[in-house]
């Protein structure tokens, strides 16, 4: 029952049912098709797809103005005129949810984009130059970064710099940009460690030595051999990290350090609804919470599906935070 057959004979026999090598990505379309082939992947795709669509098309949807204070409609329960009801200030909750999705998804995706590019860069470089000063310095730097409890630092830094826009050279960074940069930077060490381990294994593989014997340069080997081979196990974590990014953004907004009012955000809506959570106006605190939950579970489902599709051999539980 618990036996796992490992001998070469049995393995080759079982090969028919289970691919042993990760199949290469054949374009985004191919990946989406394979994701949709799994049940959880399909659910994840639908959730993430619908949310993204809603977020992108918010300005063109027939919605109430999310900022419009209709004091005469304060705390109206869900119904025909207000699909999900209104909040304490008489704003339409549904409209605010749709507009709030923009910030949540954008921040989630962009933080991971920063973490991913940084992590891949550091990981590949340090893995390829294993045993040299490059690796020591980069990994030492990552150790320092990794010694930082992410959330506390995010809170402290936003606290220190304030929630207002910050001038950085020619750029005026709104608070959202600060959070994206910050959380993205703090995502780097975890991804870099994983990438480093994978790149190290690839760099030791014979095919890399073969490339060196062909006179291929370090850059060419890193970009055309190592990077594509470590991408899919890393990719599996991306989805999960987007979910974490969304939760962090919502948490920061909840304590007033994230997306600033009046811009609608899910975390901010929950902060407004805090006092109502204990009263009978349940809907005010329920919908934004559900929205976060739905978005995060959508990305987590996608992550699980990606794991099955891209990397059937590795089955770790994903990063914990």
């Amino acid at each position, binding site marked *: 029952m618990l036996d796992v*057959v490992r*001998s070469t*004979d*049995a393995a*080759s*026999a079982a090969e*028919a049912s289970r691919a042993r090598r990760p199949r290469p990505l054949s374009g985004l379309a191919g990946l989406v098709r394979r994701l949709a082939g799994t049940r959880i992947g399909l659910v994840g795709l639908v959730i993430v797809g619908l949310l993204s669509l809603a977020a992108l098309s918010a300005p063109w949807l027939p919605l109430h103005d999310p900022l419009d204070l209709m004091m005469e409609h304060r705390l109206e329960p869900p119904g025909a005129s207000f699909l999900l009801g209104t909040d304490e200030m008489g704003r339409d909750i549904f409209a605010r949810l749709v507009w709030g999705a923009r910030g949540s998804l954008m921040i989630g995706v962009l933080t991971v984009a920063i973490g991913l590019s940084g992590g891949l860069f550091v990981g590949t470089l340090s893995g390829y130059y294993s045993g040299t000063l490059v690796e020591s310095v980069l990994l030492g730097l990552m150790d320092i970064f990794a010694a930082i409890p992410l959330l506390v630092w995010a809170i402290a830094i936003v606290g220190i710099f304030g929630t207002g826009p910050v001038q950085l050279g020619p750029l005026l960074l709104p608070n959202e940009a600060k959070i994206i940069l910050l959380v993205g930077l703090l995502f780097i060490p975890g991804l870099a460690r994983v990438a480093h381990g994978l790149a190290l294994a690839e760099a030791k593989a014979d095919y890399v030595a073969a490339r060196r014997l062909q006179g291929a340069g370090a850059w060419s080997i890193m970009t055309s051999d190592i990077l594509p081979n470590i991408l899919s196990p890393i990719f599996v974590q991306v989805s999960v990290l987007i979910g974490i990014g969304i939760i962090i953004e919502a948490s920061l907004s909840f304590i007033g350090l994230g997306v600033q009012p009046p811009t609608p955000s899910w975390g901010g809506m929950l902060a407004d609804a805090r006092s109502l959570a204990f009263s009978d106006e349940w809907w005010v605190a329920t919908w934004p919470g559900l929205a976060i939950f739905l978005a995060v579970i959508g990305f987590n489902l996608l992550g699980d599906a990606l794991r099955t599709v891209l990397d059937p051999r590795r089955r770790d539980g994903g990063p914990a935070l």
Partner: protein
Amino acid sequence: MTAPALSLSDLSVAFGPEIAARKVVHGVTLQVMAGEKLAIVGESGSGKSVTALAVMHQLGRAGRIVGGSMRLDGEDITSLPESACHELRGRKVAMIFQDPMTALNPAFTVGRQLVDAIRSHDDPGRKAAWSEAEQLLAKVGIDDPRRRSGQYPHELSGGMRQRVLIAMAIACRPRLLIADEPTTALDVTVQAQVVALLRDICASSGIALLFISHNLDLVAEFCDRIAVMYRGRIVESGSAEAIFSAPRHPYTRLLLDAVPRPGRPLRTAAPAPLAESPGEGACDYFSRCRLADADCHVRPALRGAGTHLSACWRSA
């Protein structure tokens, strides 16, 4: 007359889900008598390891026996509940695997693992088990067993680990010992020692040995009988002398020629050109065979006079 230690008749094993099952062992019949050493020889994918795992009831979830029967010491073990499998393994049949580097638990000392093996059937008590463990280590040729038993696997060489594994396998005096390529991962000099150890153990304890290998030269040195497997079927079987000196199946001949031997030039013919593709039910060796002709579109059965059998229309 005593029953054979192991008797397989018409055993078939398949992998995969019911609808897409792939048969990897087709009707294998063989017997190993007590104290006898039988070798199964074949290339990877020939089904030799799967046959062994079927005997151990360790096919995993994907694999299952789909035909035939297995008897161990006269007792039918074809289908057994999990609890009975536990009784079977270690006590009646034990197995050693190819890679000694990964087959020992890295988190426990070798003495502890040996003691666990000893105590898992007929527990003689902790103290007695430890002294028995030291005796076993000495028996498999490990110097200073007391010190060695306190060491972790990573502190031992590959040859020594394989000796420990052999000690664990014979700890409960099984009737049958299955060794799946136990020497492939070892250096040649160590390989010779491990083979010698297995031979001595069979001789002194009467344990039957089923030795799985891809090297005919190696098994011909010490096994009594040889069965050659190809694509899940036995294609030739007989005494080691008969097979080695008068091979009948072209695949056996290929295996014999493939191993370089000192004092003999390599007979390395280029692979035969692919003949026309055979249909269903043709001889499995058809596309690689130089002798194949129209007869070979029908798969030959294992046949022959006496104990030397082969599955080839061309064999005399």
